């Protein structure tokens, strides 16, 4: 079992969270939606797995490359 950090590619804020710790997720599933440049930017699961950690809350400011969640895979 290994873990993959899911990072934000943009600076912005957390608009909606669509998963909880322990959820099983599939590749390309939207985990969190960020608001950046007036757009709703989805943060997606890179692989099938389970949400091990969720490191943001709605309304949080997010920096580029910040870890949003950790997904347990394999």
């Amino acid at each position, binding site marked *: 079992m290994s873990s993959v950090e899911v990072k934000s*590619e*943009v*600076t912005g804020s957390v608009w909606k969270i669509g998963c909880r710790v322990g959820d099983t997720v599939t590749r390309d599933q939207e985990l969190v939606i960020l608001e950046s440049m*007036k*757009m709703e*930017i989805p943060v997606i699961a890179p692989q099938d797995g389970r949400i091990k950690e969720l490191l943001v809350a709605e309304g949080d400011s997010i*920096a580029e490359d910040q870890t949003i969640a950790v997904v347990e895979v394999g």
Partner: protein
Amino acid sequence: MDDRKTAQTGTQTSCEDRFEELARRRAWSLEMGGQEAIERHHDRGRLTIRERIDQLSDKGSFQEIGRLTGKAEYDEQGRVTHVQPAPYVMGVAEIDGRPVAVGGEDYTVRGGTSWSGLRRKGGQGGFIEDAAHEYRIPLVNLIDGSGGAVTSLESRGYTVFPGVDGFDRSVELMGEVPVVSAVMGTAAGGPAGRAILSHFSVMVRESSQIFAAGPPVVERALGEKLDREELGGSGIAVDTAGTIDNVADSEEDCFRQIRRFLGYMPSNVWELPPVWPTDDPVDRCEDALTSIIPEQRTRPYNMRRLLELVFDDGSLFEIQPTFGKTVITMLGRMNGQSVGIVANNPMVYGGAMDARGARKQTHFVELCDNFHIPLVFVVDIPGFLVGSGAEKAGTLRDGMRAVYAGLKADVPILTLVVRKCFGMAGMGTINKKSLEFKVAWPSGEWGSLPVEGGVKAAYRREIAAADDPAAKEAEIEERLRRLSSPFRSAEAFAVEEIIDPRETRPYIARFIDLARNRLKTCCGQKLKSGVRP
């Protein structure tokens, strides 16, 4: 009579000796650094330079040049006993039946370090560069060496001025023939610089690294303790810095990418790119294009999927997919013809151009302009990226450099606006000095800046004076948005055509075909393009 016969025999024997010596010398060159060194190289998961050239080029097409160069040992009678080959293998070969010049360091011989022959075989200023220039054929550098060493100072007895093996030919080639650099091992110093002076560069994940100087030098200069991968692995060089364009998962993948890249290129700037047959119907209309843009303006979508639906099936090859991700740059084909595609990526900052994306776009536009590859801009750009991070990154400067490159390009440009096209960054997607041909989907919208971004500033007093400022702002926004219909622009011929998204492929193909007529008239080298800002 007998004397004459003896003399003849003697001559024949001498010739045979020479042929035999030639054969022995050729055999030594094939031994490279010896079995032990080759095994060590293989154990690191790497191919030898000869295996690399064989895998890269068409079977049996490699014609080596300089097989006999090396460091020889002689016995007391002056007869050669062994030659350690020079640590560089090069020659001409074919890729998909088209000639290329190819060369690379032989790591099994002294780690591929510089060799002090009368004339360099490869690298900057080497014979292989001159051959690519002379025969007007692409150059492929398979780089696996760390350049010179300070030990040469002792053997020479004096220091040389930087540039003794200059980059002048390397720079000249950038305007003449396609140059590809593949970093196959660790590249530092001169070979690292040589890798950058290319039109396309690629490195192998976890097997190759590139940096100006390696970990020992960095630790001594800055106190940073990093291993080679942390300092210049693909995570830094490709994904973070964009120093190298693409990463390959293996050496085989690396050769596949090189072959792929060269397939879009002409052999030199005096020719047009090749046209490859395609089974993809030029009149293919995809219903999926009608729903690919979300109704909700704030939702992004998969631009790469959109491109796949439009261009020739399986023809897209992305350059720098993991760097500057606000912009997507791809080589592709339309009805068999090479095209360069610059598309905005709504999934990253809504497609707003950041400094890294701008750098990528600048290089790509110049690449296509240099090799007469028509450009298609697929536009959904809200403008330059804003904010303190963007300002610190120099977005305006890099962004305007991208605009500059677009306006300097002579190659035909077609602009397809699928959603937003705003501001100075939007200007960089249009060929202002020529036809200025802009086609849009009904979902298109454009202007100096998006309505929602400008209302609060432009109508500040009116909004402040209202009983309900928020309602007033929304009312003004709605009023302006109604005027933003693309059809109103089409009435004024401010956009040349609005098409049904399903018509995109046949529509673009028609004009790419026509562009070839113009391209035929402007082959050759580009004049110096002034000083880039």
